[in-house]
């Protein structure tokens, strides 16, 4: 154990540790509640006082992925013994499965639109950031400010013009439309973040590559990109989180084909009211991709957020 003036005392560390744990509990509590609700039966989900201990059930998940029809007890008996476990769960509710729900499609839309716009945003953002960082561009500062200013308006302020524009262009309720829209919104953030990262890469590396026999584009690809990977990864996480969770534009501009999961999940209706376990199950599954993506890139994210401090 080394002692120095900058080394915090053990009591300070203990205090800091407890604050972090407390904060983690507070932030994780809603998440735990949502995950738990997904495994409750509908009656347990709305029980008062709330049930912390309950019999787990997959009813929410089955209801999330299926369309069901209520039938009379005779018809249920005529249908015979349920063969599959999910049939059984539905039968216990006095219903039979009549088809797949649209959750799968909506989730898939989210994946296409979220990852598609993130990819497009990274390609355009890196190219623009590189240009802003390396080339002499007339009115560079004004252009950068202009790009940032597109982020200043709340989505709701521009949603009606965008709706009209999309209707004219035939982009309403299309995957392409949503990808373009989310890319446009995220581009300002990604250009600014990435420009910072690329500024930190000394130009000497590219000059060395030029002399080593590579073209400018090859130098960019072989020397700049690998070194900007950290910045690109952390920027990608920010872009994906925005596009994945976006609600306002999605509810306004999509209804059928290209509807993403966020506007769809609240519309899940059960028998005699909201089917809370199904909603919670939908939200839980919806959380998974961003969580996996973030965990995969977390090494870059940590280095990225503290950029400038760690890199030499």
């Amino acid at each position, binding site marked *: 154990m080394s002692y120095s003036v900058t080394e915090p005392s053990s009591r300070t560390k203990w205090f800091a540790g407890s604050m972090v744990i407390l904060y983690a509990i507070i932030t994780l509590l809603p998440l735990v509640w949502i995950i738990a609700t997904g495994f409750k039966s509908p009656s347990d989900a709305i029980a008062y006082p709330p049930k912390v201990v309950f019999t787990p059930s997959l009813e929410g998940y089955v209801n999330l992925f299926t369309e069901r029809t209520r039938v009379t007890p005779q018809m249920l008996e005529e249908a015979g013994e349920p063969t599959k476990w999910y049939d059984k769960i539905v039968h216990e509710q006095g219903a039979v499965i009549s088809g797949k729900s649209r959750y799968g499609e909506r989730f898939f839309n989210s994946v296409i639109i979220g990852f598609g716009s993130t990819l497009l945003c990274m390609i355009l953002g890196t190219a623009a950031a590189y240009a802003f960082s390396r080339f002499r561009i007339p009115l560079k500062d004004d252009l950068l400010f202009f790009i940032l200013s597109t982020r200043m308006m709340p989505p709701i302020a521009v949603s009606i013009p965008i709706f009209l524009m999309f209707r004219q262009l035939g982009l309403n309720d299309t995957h392409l439309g949503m990808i373009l829209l989310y890319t446009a919104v995220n581009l300002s953030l990604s250009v600014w973040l990435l420009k910072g990262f690329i500024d930190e890469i000394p130009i000497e590396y590219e000059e*060395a590559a030029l002399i*080593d*026999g590579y073209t400018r584009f090859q130098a960019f690809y072989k*020397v700049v990109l690998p*070194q900007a990977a950290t910045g690109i990864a952390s920027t990608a996480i920010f872009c994906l989180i925005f596009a994945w969770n976006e609600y306002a534009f999605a509810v306004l501009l999509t209804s059928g084909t290209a509807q993403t999961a966020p506007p769809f999940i609240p519309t899940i209706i059960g028998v005699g009211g909201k089917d809370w376990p199904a909603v919670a199950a939908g939200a839980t599954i919806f959380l998974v991709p961003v969580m996996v993506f973030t965990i995969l890139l977390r090494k870059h994210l940590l280095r990225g957020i503290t950029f400038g401090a760690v890199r030499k």
Partner: protein
Amino acid sequence: MADVVINGVSKFYDSVTALDNVSMTIPDGSFVVLLGPTGAGKTTTLRMVSGLELPGSGEVSIGGQPMRDLSPAERNVAMVFQQYSLYPHLTVRQNLEFPLKSPQLNTPKVEIDRKVANVAEILQISHKLDNKATALSGGEMQRVSIGRALVRNPSVYLMDEPLSSLDAKLRSDLRVELKNIQANSGATLLYVTHDQIEAMTMATHIGVLDKGRLVQYGSPREVYENPVSVYAASRLGQPRINILPADLFSDVPKGAKLIGLRPEQIKQGEGENSHVQRVEHLGDQTRLHLSYKNHDVITVTDAHTNLKEGDVVKVRPNKPFYFDAAGARVS
């Protein structure tokens, strides 16, 4: 290898003149050192030859071929940078292979392995080949960086203060190494430094740059023994040449306003009195700080001298340089 001709090259950055009508011929197989303080235009000259900068006017040609429309890649030059020399995301081996794998050279695998092993041997970095470039010490990094130039067979090697960030021991080792490599391979080398020992020991030619102008170009001995100006004379020699008003001495030629005295141009024991201000024993030599008619003069004396502060030493000039008021040489 090839000769490099720089013909009337000028370069302006906004209102600053970086290079002003520089002309020089770098013969095939020569080791040319550019000397001058920061901002004299040494690095700019190097970058003109490399193609990283284009001349505002004038022309650079390598091996008789004009370079104006050629990209750095097409010029077949190798360059060692002062810092940020290695690609940090690659290993030492990948760094050395990098130029050989370029679309310009596209060397076969066997050839790459042979050359990399060979260069690693010369620079004593064989055991570090699979290390990350960032996991090396400063000296090792710079050796790899020189190695990345040596794996190639370019028309000319360009080096921008490659040894300046190294410690004294490594610097002198690599100085010898570089000179050997150059002498054995017959490579043409354009080398930028502000270290006069590097210039004196390695160069076949020295170019002295002053505010973007090439003021003298010749062999190290020529520049040392026959400087064209106070500025050129001050570039070489340790301790530095003493510049004094010429009228402190007799027999001054017409037009001479300043006299330049290197330590060996000061004859001790004859002439007029000077007072010893300070004695510095450096081991192999002893430096004397003298006061001659209230002017400071630094010279060298016997290593085992018994002179001490306050002693009186007679001195007189011996074949000194004379300069006019503007600093130009007067014969």
